[in-house]
């Protein structure tokens, strides 16, 4: 029963959501809110079109680069902030000042230096992803049990080594939560970064359709992006499980609403 339910649950949830959507749109009778069926029907033409596929792949490439850059920047910064009060005091206000600014509003200035191409979009993705990763790494590093660090220090680990070999693994579960949120944000910023200026990409298809009022294509794209999200998330979950198998809870929580 349980073994069967696990892989089936997401499928069932998808079906449930699609059904709810179908009825809601039938009830609303609104051109900008097509039925689930219409949207699903619009998927194959997109996926069989070579240009669309190239578009989507281009987006994914930008996302991968932005995501990788963000991780390699945000994790060390977050860990450093978590273990050093001074670093945290130095960066915290600055980050808090920079992050709430919508990147779309800064586009004119970003364009000035980076143009309208891949670089500025990758930058936007990078910024979107790094926020949760920085803060989860930060809090994760803060909560690392001090005596573990002491043990490492006594074994001759230098401060940078301690950061890499003790704080990083100890904070890994929390960092990975940040990465997971970051992955979702990467997907979303990947699309929104193509809202204002675009050459190719999944957002290109989506916003074109939006401009043209072709809502079945809009929602078909949303479904496709959602599906990509599910796949990426599932892949990430496998990696995560493997990385933090040492921290999985030993017993199920003995709580239940029933």
């Amino acid at each position, binding site marked *: 029963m349980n073994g069967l339910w696990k892989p089936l*649950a*997401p499928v069932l949830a998808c079906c449930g959501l699609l059904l709810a959507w179908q009825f809601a749109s039938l009830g609303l009778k609104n051109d900008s809110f097509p039925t689930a069926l219409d949207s699903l029907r619009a998927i194959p033409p997109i996926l069989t079109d070579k240009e669309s596929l190239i578009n989507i792949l281009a987006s994914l490439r930008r996302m991968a680069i932005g995501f990788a850059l963000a991780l390699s920047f945000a994790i060390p910064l977050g860990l450093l902030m978590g273990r050093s009060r001074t670093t945290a005091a130095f960066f915290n206000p600055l980050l808090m000042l920079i992050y*709430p600014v919508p990147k*779309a509003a800064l586009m004119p200035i970003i364009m000035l230096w980076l143009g309208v191409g891949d670089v500025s979009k990758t930058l936007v993705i990078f910024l979107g992803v790094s926020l949760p990763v920085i803060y989860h790494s930060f809090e994760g590093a803060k*909560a690392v049990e001090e005596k573990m660090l002491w043990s490492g220090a006594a074994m001759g680990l230098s401060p940078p080594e301690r950061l890499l070999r003790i704080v990083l693994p100890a904070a890994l579960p929390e960092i990975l939560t940040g990465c997971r*949120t970051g992955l979702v944000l990467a997907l979303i910023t990947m*699309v929104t970064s193509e809202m204002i200026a675009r050459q190719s990409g999944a957002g290109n298809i989506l916003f074109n359709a939006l401009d043209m009022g072709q809502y079945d294509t809009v929602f078909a794209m949303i479904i496709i992006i959602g599906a990509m999200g*599910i796949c990426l998330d599932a892949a990430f979950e496998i990696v995560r499980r493997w990385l933090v198998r040492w921290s999985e809870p030993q017993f199920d929580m003995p709580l239940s609403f029933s």
Partner: protein
Amino acid sequence: MTRTSNDILLGAAPIVLVLLLWQALVSFGYAPPTLLPPPGQVFLRMGQQLSSVTFQQDIAATLFRLFAGFAIAVVLGVSLGIAAAVSPPVNAAVKPIVRVLAPLPKVALYPAFLLLLGFGHESKIMLVAADALFPILLSTYYGATTVEQKLIWSALAAGTPPRDVLWKVVLPAAMPSILTGCRIGLVISCIVVFLAEMITSTDGLGHVLVTAARTFQAVDMFVPLITISLLGLILNALLQGLRAYLLRGFPSV
């Protein structure tokens, strides 16, 4: 006392550096003032704007949407996250739905929100809530699943009904993680409320920016930008204060 004042000095340093860099970019001609006005001019204009009633109303509108959306996200995110962590049936229902909904680009749904909820507060609150919800939910879920088992056992043995264990043990024990999620959710709320106002609105800071951008009023464009980032800073400082109070028992640096 000295520690906090030190921290403030340290935190101010990079901000001053950024301002200097900004000024230098303008002074040395790396950016034309029509795109990047000098900081002095922006702050001067901001001072004037802050005392104008219409601008205050815009700030109020933005703040209201921000708080309302964020509050919904916190309440929903925390309760769903904890429920999913402790109850297998809820987990089975929530987890797949979250996996499906989390990666959806909510902005693309904004036109639909507009039609369903109108051009006023509701559609923006909805968008903010939809975007801020998932980081909070995920962090809560993570925090709640990693609660030390023996804490729950202790509480159960002390006679806490399973239902109460949720908010008497799981919630406080997951609090560090939840607050991290809230912090991210708060920043995302700031971004999204502004973005929504930029896309379609009749008021709010984002609207002020768009109007200025359309007519190439660079200084007026930067005033709402600086305002939102200062709001972000202040709100975050408040959240940090709350965090320090709530987590005083937990280990920290």
